[in-house]
C-alpha cells in the first residue's frame, strides 16, 4: 500500500561540461589568461609547423644518388641515403660489415629472453651475468678479427653508430660495477679507503669530460713506460668509464643511504659477512631504488660519447659532421645533424621510457 518513492532518473550533465566541448572548456579556455595562452600557442604552431613539415616531408627529395637530385627546395634526404652505410659502420671494410650485423644480432637474440615476462628470473640473472661477462669477448673477437680466419679490422676503422654503441656499451658495463665499488668504498668505515674513494669521486666529478679526454690523449702516453702505447679507442674508453663511474658512485651511494639500518643489523644477526650482506641484502634493494638515477647516468653517458670527436675518433657525431664538410655535398649540414639528432634521440628516449617501465614493474612496495 505504501507509496514507493522512485527517484527521478538523474539529469544528464550540462552539455558544456562533457564531450569535446567540455574538454576544450576545461583544458584550453578555462580562464581569460588560458584563452590568451591557447591562442598564442596555436599561433606559434601555425607559424612553425607547416613550413617545417613542408621542408621535412612534402618538398623533400628522397630519391637519387647525388646532389643533383636535390632541387626541390626541401630537405635533401638523399644525402642521408647515400651516406647511410658510412653513418652506421664508419670506415669498416665493405665486405666485412656482416660481422657488425652478426654481433648486433647476437646481442639482440641473447638479450631477448631478459625482456620476456615468461622467463624465470633465476634464468634471467644467469643469462644476464653470462652476457655481461661473455658477450664483450665474443663481440670483440667478431669485430676485431684475427681469429678463426677473420681478417683483422683495426679499431681505427671502426666508426659511425657502431663506434658510438661500442663506447656506450663498454662504458655502461664498466661504469656500473666501478660505481658500486666506489660507493661501497665511500660508505666504508675504514678511513683510508673512504678517503681514497672520496678523492677519486670528487676529482672526476669536478672536471669536464672533455679535459678528461684531453688528458687521456695527451697525458696518458706520458704516464706509461717508454715504448708502450694504447689504442686511441681504449684511451677514450678508460676516460669515459672513470668519469661516468664517479657519477654512478654518487647515484648508488644515494641508494645505499636510503636502506634502513635495520637491514644491516638483521643481516649481521643472521651471521652474514660484509660481502654477503651487501650482495644479498643491501645492494639489491639499493640498486632498485636508484634505477632512475642509473638510467639517467646511462643516458648522459650515451650523449657524452659524442665528445670523442674532440680526440679524433669517428663516432656517429663526427662521421656525420665529416660528411657535411665533404665538398661534393656542401650545404646539407642541417639534414645531417637532424638525422644524427634523431638517432641519439631514439636511443635516449627509449632508455628513459624503458626505465619508467622497469620502475613500475619492479615496484613491489607501497605506491603512494
Amino acid at each position, binding site marked *: 500500500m505504501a507509496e514507493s518513492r522512485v527517484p527521478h532518473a538523474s539529469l544528464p550533465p550540462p552539455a558544456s561540461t562533457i564531450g569535446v566541448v567540455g574538454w576544450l572548456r576545461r*583544458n*584550453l579556455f*578555462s580562464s581569460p589568461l*588560458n584563452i590568451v*595562452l*591557447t591562442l598564442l*600557442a*596555436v599561433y*606559434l*604552431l601555425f607559424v612553425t609547423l607547416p613550413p617545417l613539415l613542408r621542408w621535412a616531408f612534402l618538398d623533400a627529395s628522397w630519391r637519387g644518388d647525388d646532389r643533383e637530385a636535390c632541387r626541390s627546395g626541401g630537405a635533401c634526404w638523399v644525402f642521408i641515403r647515400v651516406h647511410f652505410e658510412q653513418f652506421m659502420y664508419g670506415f669498416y671494410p665493405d665486405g666485412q660489415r656482416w660481422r657488425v650485423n652478426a654481433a648486433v644480432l647476437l646481442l639482440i637474440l641473447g638479450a631477448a629472453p631478459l625482456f620476456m615476462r615468461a622467463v624465470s628470473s633465476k634464468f634471467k640473472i644467469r643469462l644476464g651475468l653470462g652476457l655481461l661477462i661473455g658477450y664483450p669477448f665474443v663481440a670483440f673477437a667478431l669485430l676485431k678479427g684475427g681469429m678463426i680466419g677473420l681478417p683483422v679490422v683495426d679499431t681505427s676503422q671502426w666508426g659511425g653508430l657502431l663506434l658510438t654503441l661500442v663506447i656506450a656499451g663498454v662504458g655502461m658495463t664498466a661504469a656500473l660495477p666501478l660505481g658500486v665499488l666506489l660507493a661501497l668504498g665511500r660508505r666504508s*668505515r*675504514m*678511513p*683510508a*679507503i673512504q678517503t*681514497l674513494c672520496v678523492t677519486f669521486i*670528487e*676529482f672526476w*666529478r*669536478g*672536471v*669536464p*669530460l*672533455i*679535459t678528461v679526454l*684531453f*688528458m687521456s690523449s*695527451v*697525458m696518458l*702516453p*706520458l*704516464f*706509461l*713506460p*717508454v715504448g708502450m702505447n694504447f689504442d686511441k679507442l681504449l684511451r677514450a674508453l678508460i676516460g669515459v668509464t672513470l668519469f661516468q663511474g664517479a657519477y654512478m658512485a654518487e647515484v648508488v651511494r644515494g641508494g645505499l643511504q636510503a636502506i634502513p639500518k635495520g637491514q644491516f643489523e638483521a643481516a649481521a644477526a643472521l651471521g652474514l659477512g660484509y660481502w654477503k650482506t651487501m650482495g644479498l641484502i643491501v645492494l639489491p634493494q639499493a640498486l632498485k631504488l636508484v634505477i632512475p638515477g642509473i638510467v639517467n647516468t646511462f*643516458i648522459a653517458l650515451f*650523449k*657524452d*660519447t*659524442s*665528445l670523442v*670527436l*674532440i680526440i679524433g675518433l669517428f663516432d656517429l*657525431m663526427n662521421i656525420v*659532421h665529416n660528411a*657535411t664538410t665533404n665538398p661534393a655535398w656542401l*650545404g646539407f*649540414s*642541417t639534414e645531417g*645533424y637532424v638525422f*644524427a*639528432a634523431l638517432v*641519439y*634521440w631514439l636511443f*635516449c*628516449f627509449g632508455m*628513459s621510457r624503458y626505465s619508467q617501465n622497469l620502475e613500475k614493474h619492479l615496484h613491489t612496495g607501497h605506491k603512494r
Partner: protein
Amino acid sequence: MAEHAPAPVKPPFWNDPQIRAILFQAIALVVTVAFGLYVFDNTQANLRRLGIASGFGFLSSPSGFDIIQSLIPYSPTSSYGRVFWVALLNTLLVSALGIVLATALGFVIGIARLSKNWLISRLALAYIETFRNIPLLLQIFFWYFAVLRVMPAPGQSLDLGKIVFPKLGLEEIAFLNIRGLYLPAPEFQTGFGWVLAAFGIAVALTVLLARWARRRQKATGQQFPLFSVSLALLLGLPLLTFWLAGSPLAWQVPKLQGFNFQGGLVVIPEMASLLLALTLYTATFIAEIVRAGIQAVSHGQTEASLSLGLSSSLTLRLIILPQALRVIIPPLTNQYLNLTKNSSLAAAIGYPDLVSAFAGTVLNQTGQAIECIAITMAVYLTISLLISLMMNWYNRRVALVER
C-alpha cells in the same frame, strides 16, 4: 643445566675484523702509492726522452697568437699567462650568461609544464623531451655550422628589428651576418655615475626598509607593502636621477662601412651558438627540477594557507615558494655546475675558452701537456668545490629542523 657454555674460541688473527681493516687499508695505501710512484717515474723518463722541461716558466713567454674575443687587453705579444686570464674570463662570461638565461627559460618552461592549459603543458613537454635527449655537442654544432655559418655576408645582413618586430620602428639597429650578431652598444656619458649611485642608495634603503618592516610586524602585527614599495624605490630613484642628469646614456648603433659593420656590440657566432645551445639544453633540466620542486609541496599546504585567509599571491610567496625552493636549489646548483663544465665544449667550435685556448692552443704550442691540463683541471675543480661549499652552506640554512 649446570653445564657451562665452552669459553668462546678466539678467532684466528686473520679473521679479526680490526686487524683485517688495518690490513686492507695498508694494502690500498701501498698499492696507491706504488702506482703513483710508477706513473711519476714513467713520466720523468718520458719527459727526459722528449726533452720537455717541466715547470711553469713558459707562462711568462710571449704567446704569438691572437684571440678572437677578449675581455681584457690582449695582443699576440702578451704572455701565455695572459692567455690563461683571457680564456678564464671567456669561460666565466659564457657560463654566467648561460646560467641567467637557462634559469629564466627553465622556470618559464617548468611552470608551463604544470599549467592547466593542455596545449601549453604539452608544448613544454615536447620541448623538454626533444632538447634533453640530444647531445649538447650536436646542438652546438647545429647552431654553429647549420645556422650561423650559413648567414649572409655583412653586405646582405639580416635586419633583426625588421624581421622579428616589423613595423615597430626598430629597423637598422641590430644585424645578423656570418661575422656575428651586431647589437647597439650603450655609451655611458658623464653623469651616469649619479644613476649608479642612486641605484646603490635605493638598494641600501630597501634593506633598511625590509628590516624596519619586519621589526614592526613582529611588534605590532601590521604588515607593510614591502614588495611594491621597494620595487618603486629600486626603479624610481635611478630613473629620476637619470632624468635629472639629462639622460646620460646614448646607444651606439652598428653601421655598415665598407665590408663590415663598425661600432656597436658584437657577439661572435662561436659565442652565440655556444650560449644558445647551453641555454636550450640546460633549461630542459631546470624545467624538470622546477616542476618537481613545486609538485613536492603537498596540496594540503595550499589548502591550509587559503583556509588561514592568506591570499593566493601570499600563499605562493610565503608558503609554496619557500618549501619548493628547498627542493629546487640543490639540483639547480648542480645544473649550474654542469653548465659551467659543459661550456668547455667550446673547444669543438673554437670559442676561446679555457679548454680551447689554454688546454688547446697553448698546449700545442708549448708542449707543456702536464702543466696546461693540471692548471685547467685545477680551475674547474676550484669552481666545483666553491659552488658545492656554497650549496652545503645554503642547505644547512634551509634544512628542515626535525625533532
